[in-house]
């Protein structure tokens, strides 16, 4: 078999196995929606308490544009915030790895920072950044940067000391050691951090939007949820929540696929 044919065969096998893997979750979702509908109609729950699945779908399909616009806004904030968290987290993790002293003095503080509930900081973000995108992005970064820092640090620390010695023999400087040895060695660990942080990013974005988003025609999903809640339009809340979940899922899916491609190259023979 030629290499290309074998790659195509492997891809077909992967698509088939992915499809097979989707059957179970799809069945679960369908069952859950059915249970939801049965519960709603058999106990005649009021619409503002629990809308029907069909009602939720109708609200969305009648006028999808505010939801889709909101989704776009949320997605933009989530992607920008996540990207900043990735670059910043890798850089910060690298700086921390430069010396034990720096690590010992700064790392516990980042841990402490992680423990502060976002909801408690969010009003401060509004004071510092004002209402709108910057505060929302800041909230995304705060929530999602920590796993990147921690995993970068762990990965950089775990490199093969024998390769360190090789670089020392070759007279490599600190920057070269970081860029050509430490960082490539840490890729697998960093990618794990990215996966965790991709899941968290959307949470940070929506939380930020609860407090710092501006209303109007380009209101993001977090804002839509809040305004719909105030008007007891629970069906609209459901739509927004579902779309927010889609944003999170898309980000996570993208990172997973990208990391698989990256890892295929990086972890050869390990």
């Amino acid at each position: 078999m030629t290499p290309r044919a074998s790659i195509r065969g492997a891809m077909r096998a992967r698509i088939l196995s992915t499809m097979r893997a989707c059957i179970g979750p799809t069945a679960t979702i369908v069952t859950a929606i059915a249970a939801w509908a049965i519960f709603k109609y058999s106990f005649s729950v009021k619409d503002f308490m629990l809308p029907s699945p069909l009602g939720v779908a109708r609200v969305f399909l009648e006028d999808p544009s505010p939801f889709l616009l909101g989704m776009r806004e949320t997605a933009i904030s989530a992607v920008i915030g996540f990207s900043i968290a990735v670059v910043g987290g890798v850089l910060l993790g690298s700086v921390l790895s430069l010396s034990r002293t720096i690590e010992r003095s700064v790392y516990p503080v980042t841990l402490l920072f992680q423990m502060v509930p976002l909801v408690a900081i969010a009003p401060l973000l509004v004071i510092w950044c004002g209402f709108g995108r910057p505060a929302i992005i800041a909230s995304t970064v705060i929530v999602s940067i920590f796993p990147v820092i921690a995993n970068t640090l762990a990965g950089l620390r775990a490199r093969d000391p024998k390769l360190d010695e090789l670089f020392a023999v070759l007279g490599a400087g600190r920057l070269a050691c970081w860029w050509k040895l430490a960082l490539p060695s840490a890729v697998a660990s960093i990618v794990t951090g990215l996966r965790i942080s991709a899941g968290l990013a959307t949470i940070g974005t929506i939380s930020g939007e609860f407090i710092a988003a501006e209303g109007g025609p380009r209101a993001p999903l977090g804002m839509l949820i809040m305004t719909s809640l105030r008007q007891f339009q629970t069906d609209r809340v459901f739509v927004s929540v579902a779309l927010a979940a889609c944003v999170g899922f898309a980000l996570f899916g993208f990172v997973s696929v990208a990391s698989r491609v990256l890892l295929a190259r990086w972890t050869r023979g390990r």
Partner: protein
Amino acid sequence: MNSNTATMCSLKLAGVSRAFGAVAAVDSVNLSLAAGSFTAMVGPSGCGKTTLLRMMGELEIPSAGQISRTSGTVSFCFQEPRLLPWRTLLENVALPLELTGVERHERLERAARALALVQLDDAHTRYPHQLSGGMQMRASIARALVSRPQLLLLDEPFSGLDEITRHELDAELRALWERERFTAIVVTHSIPEAAFLAERVLVFSPRPARVVADIATPMIVRDARAWTSDALAACVREASTALLHAIVEARR
């Protein structure tokens, strides 16, 4: 037995010792190694020969004594290939040049030439895990040679390989040295290997390492490949026997 003057001297050790805590690994070694010579260091396992080699390569600092050498590039060949798994063979071999800032086009060209020296012409784009242990070791030697070292330090470079591959690589190393004439120092456990490779064999005592015998092996091989296998085998056998005698004598 070594009558080289200081100016010819590529490497000179004066009273070099190394201790790890209370354990002495190397005990006041005096040596003078001529430029362009091929020296083997043999001795029991764990006697400190590797520590001595590492001090020569500045991987380790002597506790006492001095190592002086004439300026020039030094390459170190480890016991394991130590290739970067995420790089192709060509990129791996080009690494030393990359780190010293040689421009990309030139370094890849030189890396390709170094790979040709060790018969790996057709493996440029392969990754380390796609290669056998022998091929990885060859690549590691190519990486050591790519910067055209004046001094090549080899730490039991072929000890992990099967006999046949090992012999092949020994012959290649020897031929490379004939051609390039760098100063080579190899640590080995194998007496036939020492006899085959080196012009001069240093025998070390158990720890702490001290030179107990300094033996000139007959220059058996001018160009190992030009010899018939019978003649070569006889010669290595003879040299090994002589070496073994000398080692046993030195122990008395």
